[in-house]
Protein backbone atom coordinates (compact mmCIF):
# COMPACT_ATOMS: atom_id res chain seq x y z
CA UNK A 1 0.00 0.00 0.00
CA UNK A 2 1.40 3.37 -0.87
CA UNK A 3 0.51 6.70 0.53
CA UNK A 4 0.48 9.90 -1.41
CA UNK A 5 -0.20 13.56 -0.80
CA UNK A 6 -2.87 15.83 -2.01
CA UNK A 7 -3.31 19.56 -1.56
CA UNK A 8 -6.59 21.35 -1.80
CA UNK A 9 -6.80 25.12 -1.92
CA UNK A 10 -9.77 26.99 -0.58
CA UNK A 11 -10.75 30.56 -0.83
CA UNK A 12 -13.12 30.49 2.06
CA UNK A 13 -11.99 29.59 5.52
CA UNK A 14 -15.39 28.39 6.55
CA UNK A 15 -15.44 25.94 3.71
CA UNK A 16 -12.00 24.74 4.64
CA UNK A 17 -13.01 24.14 8.20
CA UNK A 18 -16.18 22.46 7.05
CA UNK A 19 -14.07 20.20 4.85
CA UNK A 20 -11.87 19.26 7.75
CA UNK A 21 -14.85 18.68 9.96
CA UNK A 22 -16.25 16.34 7.40
CA UNK A 23 -12.97 14.56 6.90
CA UNK A 24 -12.80 14.03 10.59
CA UNK A 25 -16.24 12.57 10.66
CA UNK A 26 -15.76 10.44 7.56
CA UNK A 27 -13.51 7.72 9.08
CA UNK A 28 -12.22 6.87 5.66
CA UNK A 29 -10.12 3.78 5.31
CA UNK A 30 -6.46 4.61 4.85
CA UNK A 31 -6.76 8.10 6.13
CA UNK A 32 -5.86 9.51 9.50
CA UNK A 33 -6.67 12.94 10.84
CA UNK A 34 -3.08 13.41 12.00
CA UNK A 35 -2.00 13.35 8.37
CA UNK A 36 -3.96 16.48 7.65
CA UNK A 37 -1.89 19.60 7.46
CA UNK A 38 -3.45 22.99 7.29
CA UNK A 39 -1.56 25.64 5.40
CA UNK A 40 -2.65 29.15 5.83
CA UNK A 41 -1.42 32.71 5.47
CA UNK A 42 -2.48 33.53 9.01
CA UNK A 43 -2.85 31.50 12.14
CA UNK A 44 -6.16 29.73 12.76
CA UNK A 45 -6.48 28.50 16.28
CA UNK A 46 -10.11 27.66 15.68
CA UNK A 47 -9.38 25.36 12.72
CA UNK A 48 -6.34 23.92 14.44
CA UNK A 49 -8.68 22.81 17.17
CA UNK A 50 -10.56 20.73 14.67
CA UNK A 51 -7.42 18.88 13.81
CA UNK A 52 -7.24 17.53 17.29
CA UNK A 53 -4.66 18.02 20.01
CA UNK A 54 -1.31 18.67 18.49
CA UNK A 55 0.86 19.49 21.45
CA UNK A 56 3.43 22.32 21.41
CA UNK A 57 6.51 21.79 23.55
CA UNK A 58 8.08 25.24 23.24
CA UNK A 59 7.32 26.23 26.83
CA UNK A 60 9.18 23.25 28.11
CA UNK A 61 12.27 24.50 26.34
CA UNK A 62 11.62 27.91 27.78
CA UNK A 63 11.49 26.58 31.28
CA UNK A 64 14.70 24.67 31.01
CA UNK A 65 16.47 27.43 29.12
CA UNK A 66 15.60 30.04 31.69
CA UNK A 67 16.42 27.82 34.65
CA UNK A 68 19.75 26.79 33.27
CA UNK A 69 20.55 30.30 32.18
CA UNK A 70 20.01 31.59 35.68
CA UNK A 71 21.67 28.73 37.49
CA UNK A 72 24.72 28.46 35.31
CA UNK A 73 24.92 32.23 35.14
CA UNK A 74 25.14 32.59 38.87
CA UNK A 75 27.55 29.74 39.29
CA UNK A 76 29.72 30.98 36.48
CA UNK A 77 29.86 34.52 37.81
CA UNK A 78 30.46 33.65 41.41
CA UNK A 79 33.10 31.06 40.71
CA UNK A 80 34.81 33.45 38.35
CA UNK A 81 34.86 36.03 41.12
CA UNK A 82 36.18 33.50 43.58
CA UNK A 83 39.02 32.40 41.36
CA UNK A 84 40.00 35.75 39.94
CA UNK A 85 43.06 36.12 42.16
CA UNK A 86 40.61 37.19 44.84
CA UNK A 87 40.43 40.87 44.09
CA UNK A 88 38.42 42.74 46.67
CA UNK A 89 36.81 45.79 45.24
CA UNK A 90 35.37 48.87 46.82
CA UNK A 91 34.94 47.29 50.23
CA UNK A 92 32.36 44.93 48.82
CA UNK A 93 32.49 41.18 49.39
CA UNK A 94 34.35 39.24 46.75
CA UNK A 95 31.06 37.66 45.75
CA UNK A 96 28.57 40.49 46.02
CA UNK A 97 25.00 39.28 45.77
CA UNK A 98 23.11 42.26 44.27
CA UNK A 99 25.34 42.73 41.22
CA UNK A 100 25.43 39.00 40.65
CA UNK A 101 21.64 38.93 40.80
CA UNK A 102 21.44 41.53 38.06
CA UNK A 103 23.62 39.42 35.82
CA UNK A 104 21.84 36.24 36.80
CA UNK A 105 18.61 37.88 35.79
CA UNK A 106 20.01 38.89 32.41
CA UNK A 107 21.33 35.40 31.82
CA UNK A 108 17.98 33.98 32.88
CA UNK A 109 16.36 35.93 30.09
CA UNK A 110 19.14 35.18 27.65
CA UNK A 111 18.85 31.46 28.29
CA UNK A 112 15.07 31.66 28.15
CA UNK A 113 14.92 33.46 24.83
CA UNK A 114 17.60 31.42 23.11
CA UNK A 115 16.31 28.06 24.15
CA UNK A 116 12.72 29.07 23.41
CA UNK A 117 13.72 29.89 19.88
CA UNK A 118 15.61 26.64 19.66
CA UNK A 119 12.44 24.93 20.83
CA UNK A 120 10.49 26.74 18.17
CA UNK A 121 12.81 25.54 15.45
CA UNK A 122 12.61 22.01 16.73
CA UNK A 123 8.85 22.13 17.27
CA UNK A 124 8.11 23.75 13.93
CA UNK A 125 10.72 21.58 12.27
CA UNK A 126 12.47 24.58 10.87
CA UNK A 127 14.48 24.89 8.77
CA UNK A 128 12.89 22.41 6.42
CA UNK A 129 12.49 21.89 2.74
CA UNK A 130 9.21 23.06 1.39
CA UNK A 131 6.76 20.30 0.61
CA UNK A 132 6.60 19.62 -3.06
CA UNK A 133 2.90 20.30 -2.98
CA UNK A 134 3.46 23.73 -1.47
CA UNK A 135 1.61 26.40 -3.31
CA UNK A 136 2.52 30.05 -3.13
CA UNK A 137 -1.11 31.03 -2.88
CA UNK A 138 -1.30 29.87 0.73
CA UNK A 139 1.05 32.69 1.61
CA UNK A 140 -1.26 35.12 -0.10
CA UNK A 141 -4.92 34.64 0.53
CA UNK A 142 -5.88 30.99 0.17
CA UNK A 143 -6.03 28.23 2.65
CA UNK A 144 -4.61 24.88 1.83
CA UNK A 145 -5.35 21.44 3.22
CA UNK A 146 -2.62 18.94 2.65
CA UNK A 147 -3.46 15.38 3.35
CA UNK A 148 -1.54 12.20 3.23
CA UNK A 149 -3.59 9.11 2.63
CA UNK A 150 -3.67 5.71 1.02
CA UNK A 151 -4.16 5.96 -2.66
CA UNK A 152 -7.43 4.12 -2.19
CA UNK A 153 -8.86 6.88 -0.08
CA UNK A 154 -7.84 9.60 -2.41
CA UNK A 155 -10.86 9.79 -4.69
CA UNK A 156 -13.23 10.09 -1.75
CA UNK A 157 -11.24 12.86 -0.26
CA UNK A 158 -11.04 14.60 -3.57
CA UNK A 159 -14.78 14.48 -3.86
CA UNK A 160 -15.11 15.88 -0.41
CA UNK A 161 -12.88 18.79 -1.24
CA UNK A 162 -14.67 19.47 -4.47
CA UNK A 163 -17.91 19.48 -2.59
CA UNK A 164 -16.53 22.17 -0.34
CA UNK A 165 -15.72 24.38 -3.26
CA UNK A 166 -11.99 23.79 -3.30
CA UNK A 167 -10.53 26.12 -5.88
CA UNK A 168 -7.92 23.69 -6.93
CA UNK A 169 -6.88 20.21 -5.95
CA UNK A 170 -3.35 19.21 -6.62
CA UNK A 171 -2.19 15.69 -6.22
CA UNK A 172 1.26 14.20 -6.33
CA UNK A 173 2.56 13.92 -9.81
CA UNK A 174 0.08 16.51 -11.01
CA UNK A 175 -2.93 14.26 -10.63
Amino acid sequence: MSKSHMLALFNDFDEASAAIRELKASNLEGFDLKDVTLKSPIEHPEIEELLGKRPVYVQLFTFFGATFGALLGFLFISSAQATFLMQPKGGKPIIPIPPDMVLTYELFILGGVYITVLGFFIGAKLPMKRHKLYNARVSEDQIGILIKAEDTAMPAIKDLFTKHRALEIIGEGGK
Partner: protein
Amino acid sequence: MSITNLLNNWSFYRNKRPYRGQYDLNRQYGEYKWAMAVDLDICTGCNACTTACYAENNLPVVGKHRFEHGQVMHWIRIERYWDEKMGEFPEQGTSFLPMMCQQCEAAPCETVCPVAATSHTNDGLNSQNYHRCIGSRYCSANCPFKVRYFNWWNYPSTAWPAPLEDQLNPDVTVRTKGVMEKCTFCVQRLSEAKSRARTEYRLVRDGEVLPACAQACPTGAISFGNIVDPESKIAKMWKNQQVDLYKDMQEKDNTVRGYRILEDLRPFPSVMYMERVRDAEA
Protein backbone atom coordinates in the same frame (compact mmCIF):
# COMPACT_ATOMS: atom_id res chain seq x y z
CA MET B 1 37.11 22.82 41.60
CA SER B 2 35.45 26.10 41.83
CA ILE B 3 32.12 25.00 43.22
CA THR B 4 33.89 23.24 46.08
CA ASN B 5 35.95 26.38 46.45
CA LEU B 6 32.76 28.41 46.60
CA LEU B 7 31.16 26.19 49.18
CA ASN B 8 34.24 25.90 51.37
CA ASN B 9 35.10 29.56 51.44
CA TRP B 10 31.68 31.12 51.11
CA SER B 11 31.83 33.15 54.29
CA PHE B 12 35.24 34.49 53.36
CA TYR B 13 34.02 35.57 49.98
CA ARG B 14 31.08 37.30 51.61
CA ASN B 15 33.20 39.48 53.91
CA LYS B 16 32.67 43.21 53.63
CA ARG B 17 35.72 45.40 53.82
CA PRO B 18 37.31 46.88 55.74
CA TYR B 19 36.69 44.56 58.62
CA ARG B 20 38.59 44.54 61.86
CA GLY B 21 41.32 41.99 61.56
CA GLN B 22 41.61 42.38 57.85
CA TYR B 23 45.11 43.65 58.42
CA ASP B 24 47.15 41.84 60.97
CA LEU B 25 50.88 41.67 61.53
CA ASN B 26 50.64 37.92 61.96
CA ARG B 27 48.66 37.33 58.83
CA GLN B 28 50.49 36.58 55.67
CA TYR B 29 49.57 39.13 53.00
CA GLY B 30 47.84 41.29 55.57
CA GLU B 31 50.85 42.57 57.41
CA TYR B 32 50.97 45.87 55.58
CA LYS B 33 48.41 48.60 55.29
CA TRP B 34 49.97 51.75 53.98
CA ALA B 35 48.49 54.93 55.28
CA MET B 36 49.25 58.59 55.24
CA ALA B 37 48.73 61.60 57.43
CA VAL B 38 48.87 65.15 56.14
CA ASP B 39 49.27 67.96 58.62
CA LEU B 40 47.51 70.90 57.07
CA ASP B 41 48.87 73.23 59.69
CA ILE B 42 52.41 72.93 58.47
CA CYS B 43 51.74 72.43 54.79
CA THR B 44 52.95 75.66 53.23
CA GLY B 45 51.62 74.96 49.76
CA CYS B 46 55.06 75.03 48.17
CA ASN B 47 54.37 72.34 45.56
CA ALA B 48 57.60 70.45 46.25
CA CYS B 49 55.52 67.29 46.55
CA THR B 50 53.95 67.88 43.14
CA THR B 51 57.28 68.28 41.42
CA ALA B 52 58.73 65.31 43.28
CA CYS B 53 55.82 63.27 42.01
CA TYR B 54 56.48 64.40 38.44
CA ALA B 55 60.07 63.27 38.82
CA GLU B 56 59.34 59.96 40.47
CA ASN B 57 56.32 58.79 38.56
CA ASN B 58 57.07 59.83 35.00
CA LEU B 59 54.23 62.32 34.85
CA PRO B 60 54.04 64.09 31.53
CA VAL B 61 54.24 67.85 31.26
CA VAL B 62 51.12 68.56 29.25
CA GLY B 63 51.66 72.17 28.30
CA LYS B 64 49.53 75.25 28.56
CA HIS B 65 46.86 74.37 26.06
CA ARG B 66 46.10 70.98 27.54
CA PHE B 67 46.31 72.32 31.05
CA GLU B 68 43.67 74.82 30.07
CA HIS B 69 41.47 71.95 28.96
CA GLY B 70 41.81 70.25 32.31
CA GLN B 71 44.02 67.49 31.00
CA VAL B 72 46.80 68.02 33.52
CA MET B 73 48.30 64.86 35.01
CA HIS B 74 49.44 65.86 38.50
CA TRP B 75 48.84 62.90 40.77
CA ILE B 76 49.11 65.15 43.76
CA ARG B 77 47.80 68.65 43.56
CA ILE B 78 47.80 71.50 46.03
CA GLU B 79 44.39 73.04 46.35
CA ARG B 80 44.02 76.55 47.63
CA TYR B 81 40.76 77.60 49.24
CA TRP B 82 39.78 81.01 50.46
CA ASP B 83 37.69 81.24 53.55
CA GLU B 84 34.00 81.35 52.74
CA LYS B 85 33.43 84.07 55.31
CA MET B 86 36.37 86.10 54.10
CA GLY B 87 35.93 89.85 54.20
CA GLU B 88 37.82 92.20 51.97
CA PHE B 89 41.11 90.51 52.69
CA PRO B 90 42.11 86.96 53.60
CA GLU B 91 43.18 87.99 57.07
CA GLN B 92 43.86 84.46 58.22
CA GLY B 93 45.86 83.48 55.20
CA THR B 94 44.57 80.77 52.96
CA SER B 95 44.05 77.03 53.16
CA PHE B 96 46.23 74.62 51.26
CA LEU B 97 45.16 71.07 50.71
CA PRO B 98 47.46 68.52 49.13
CA MET B 99 45.12 66.08 47.42
CA MET B 100 46.29 62.76 46.12
CA CYS B 101 44.53 59.42 45.72
CA GLN B 102 43.06 58.65 49.11
CA GLN B 103 43.56 54.90 48.60
CA CYS B 104 40.07 54.33 49.96
CA GLU B 105 39.41 51.01 51.63
CA ALA B 106 35.93 51.03 50.14
CA ALA B 107 36.93 52.76 46.96
CA PRO B 108 34.06 53.92 44.76
CA CYS B 109 36.31 53.64 41.73
CA GLU B 110 37.01 49.96 42.15
CA THR B 111 33.49 48.63 41.97
CA VAL B 112 32.65 50.33 38.74
CA CYS B 113 35.61 49.43 36.56
CA PRO B 114 34.24 47.02 33.96
CA VAL B 115 37.48 45.14 33.46
CA ALA B 116 38.76 45.03 37.04
CA ALA B 117 41.71 47.21 36.13
CA THR B 118 41.55 48.84 39.51
CA SER B 119 41.20 46.80 42.66
CA HIS B 120 42.53 46.48 46.15
CA THR B 121 45.91 45.02 46.90
CA ASN B 122 46.74 43.01 49.96
CA ASP B 123 48.49 45.94 51.54
CA GLY B 124 45.48 48.16 51.22
CA LEU B 125 46.42 50.08 48.11
CA ASN B 126 44.00 50.97 45.42
CA SER B 127 45.95 49.63 42.49
CA GLN B 128 45.67 50.65 38.88
CA ASN B 129 46.48 48.07 36.28
CA TYR B 130 47.49 49.99 33.16
CA HIS B 131 47.59 47.13 30.72
CA ARG B 132 44.15 45.95 31.76
CA CYS B 133 42.59 49.40 31.56
CA ILE B 134 40.42 49.98 28.52
CA GLY B 135 39.75 53.60 29.30
CA SER B 136 36.04 53.66 30.11
CA ARG B 137 36.80 56.41 32.66
CA TYR B 138 34.02 55.22 34.89
CA CYS B 139 36.42 55.17 37.84
CA SER B 140 37.15 58.83 37.36
CA ALA B 141 33.47 59.58 37.05
CA ASN B 142 32.83 57.86 40.34
CA CYS B 143 35.82 59.18 42.25
CA PRO B 144 34.53 61.76 44.72
CA PHE B 145 37.99 63.30 45.07
CA LYS B 146 38.61 63.46 41.34
CA VAL B 147 42.19 62.31 41.70
CA ARG B 148 42.24 60.00 38.74
CA TYR B 149 43.89 61.28 35.62
CA PHE B 150 43.24 60.00 32.15
CA ASN B 151 45.76 59.92 29.32
CA TRP B 152 43.85 62.00 26.82
CA TRP B 153 46.82 62.12 24.49
CA ASN B 154 49.66 59.93 23.51
CA TYR B 155 52.08 61.51 25.95
CA PRO B 156 54.98 59.09 25.49
CA SER B 157 55.46 60.47 21.99
CA THR B 158 55.15 64.14 22.87
CA ALA B 159 55.83 64.91 26.50
CA TRP B 160 59.47 63.97 26.65
CA PRO B 161 61.37 65.48 23.73
CA ALA B 162 64.82 63.92 23.60
CA PRO B 163 66.81 63.68 25.75
CA LEU B 164 64.20 64.37 28.43
CA GLU B 165 63.10 60.75 28.27
CA ASP B 166 66.41 59.79 29.83
CA GLN B 167 65.04 61.10 33.08
CA LEU B 168 62.20 58.57 33.10
CA ASN B 169 62.15 56.29 36.07
CA PRO B 170 62.58 52.72 34.81
CA ASP B 171 60.67 51.41 37.81
CA VAL B 172 57.50 53.14 36.70
CA THR B 173 55.54 52.46 33.56
CA VAL B 174 55.15 55.27 31.07
CA ARG B 175 51.46 55.34 30.39
CA THR B 176 50.14 55.40 26.89
CA LYS B 177 47.05 57.11 25.57
CA GLY B 178 43.72 55.85 26.73
CA VAL B 179 44.53 54.59 30.19
CA MET B 180 43.66 55.94 33.58
CA GLU B 181 46.33 56.65 36.10
CA LYS B 182 46.61 57.98 39.61
CA CYS B 183 48.73 58.23 42.72
CA THR B 184 50.07 54.82 43.75
CA PHE B 185 51.68 55.81 47.06
CA CYS B 186 54.86 55.19 45.03
CA VAL B 187 54.17 51.50 44.90
CA GLN B 188 57.49 50.88 43.15
CA ARG B 189 59.28 52.04 46.27
CA LEU B 190 57.00 50.01 48.52
CA SER B 191 57.56 46.85 46.49
CA GLU B 192 61.27 47.34 46.56
CA ALA B 193 61.25 47.85 50.33
CA LYS B 194 58.99 44.86 50.88
CA SER B 195 61.12 42.64 48.74
CA ARG B 196 64.27 43.82 50.50
CA ALA B 197 62.67 43.15 53.85
CA ARG B 198 61.52 39.71 52.79
CA THR B 199 65.04 38.68 51.86
CA GLU B 200 66.05 39.64 55.38
CA TYR B 201 63.15 37.78 57.03
CA ARG B 202 61.63 40.88 58.52
CA LEU B 203 58.94 43.44 57.88
CA VAL B 204 59.59 46.84 56.42
CA ARG B 205 60.81 49.13 59.19
CA ASP B 206 59.03 52.31 60.04
CA GLY B 207 60.47 55.12 57.97
CA GLU B 208 62.36 52.76 55.71
CA VAL B 209 60.30 53.74 52.74
CA LEU B 210 58.52 56.95 51.84
CA PRO B 211 56.63 58.06 48.77
CA ALA B 212 58.31 60.80 46.80
CA CYS B 213 55.99 63.50 48.12
CA ALA B 214 56.58 62.64 51.76
CA GLN B 215 60.30 62.40 51.20
CA ALA B 216 60.50 65.78 49.54
CA CYS B 217 58.08 67.75 51.73
CA PRO B 218 60.29 70.44 53.31
CA THR B 219 58.09 70.85 56.36
CA GLY B 220 57.45 67.17 56.81
CA ALA B 221 53.73 67.72 56.59
CA ILE B 222 53.23 64.33 54.95
CA SER B 223 53.77 61.27 57.12
CA PHE B 224 53.61 57.77 55.77
CA GLY B 225 53.93 54.27 57.03
CA ASN B 226 52.48 50.88 57.77
CA ILE B 227 49.46 51.40 59.99
CA VAL B 228 49.26 47.71 60.90
CA ASP B 229 52.40 48.01 62.95
CA PRO B 230 51.21 49.58 66.21
CA GLU B 231 54.71 50.89 66.87
CA SER B 232 54.90 52.80 63.64
CA LYS B 233 54.65 56.57 63.74
CA ILE B 234 51.69 56.60 61.41
CA ALA B 235 49.72 54.14 63.53
CA LYS B 236 50.43 56.20 66.60
CA MET B 237 49.38 59.36 64.80
CA TRP B 238 46.09 57.87 63.65
CA LYS B 239 45.41 56.56 67.11
CA ASN B 240 46.36 59.83 68.70
CA GLN B 241 44.10 61.69 66.32
CA GLN B 242 41.27 59.26 67.06
CA VAL B 243 40.83 58.28 63.45
CA ASP B 244 39.93 54.65 63.04
CA LEU B 245 40.57 53.01 59.70
CA TYR B 246 37.61 50.70 60.09
CA LYS B 247 35.06 53.32 61.04
CA ASP B 248 33.16 55.21 58.42
CA MET B 249 32.34 58.23 60.55
CA GLN B 250 34.73 59.23 63.28
CA GLU B 251 33.66 60.21 66.74
CA LYS B 252 36.37 62.33 68.19
CA ASP B 253 37.06 65.07 70.66
CA ASN B 254 36.85 68.67 69.50
CA THR B 255 40.45 69.25 70.37
CA VAL B 256 41.73 66.52 68.14
CA ARG B 257 42.72 67.46 64.63
CA GLY B 258 42.47 64.27 62.63
CA TYR B 259 39.76 63.74 60.04
CA ARG B 260 39.25 62.12 56.70
CA ILE B 261 37.81 64.01 53.77
CA LEU B 262 34.29 63.28 52.48
CA GLU B 263 33.67 60.67 55.14
CA ASP B 264 29.95 61.07 54.56
CA LEU B 265 30.35 59.14 51.32
CA ARG B 266 31.88 56.25 53.29
CA PRO B 267 34.90 55.53 51.14
CA PHE B 268 37.14 54.82 54.18
CA PRO B 269 40.15 56.79 52.93
CA SER B 270 43.66 55.79 53.94
CA VAL B 271 44.79 59.38 54.16
CA MET B 272 44.18 61.23 57.38
CA TYR B 273 44.29 64.98 57.33
CA MET B 274 45.03 67.07 60.37
CA GLU B 275 43.12 70.28 60.71
CA ARG B 276 44.70 73.59 59.96
CA VAL B 277 45.21 75.63 63.12
CA ARG B 278 44.84 79.37 63.23
CA ASP B 279 45.47 81.62 66.13
CA ALA B 280 42.09 83.28 66.38
CA GLU B 281 43.48 85.99 68.64
CA ALA B 282 46.23 86.99 66.27
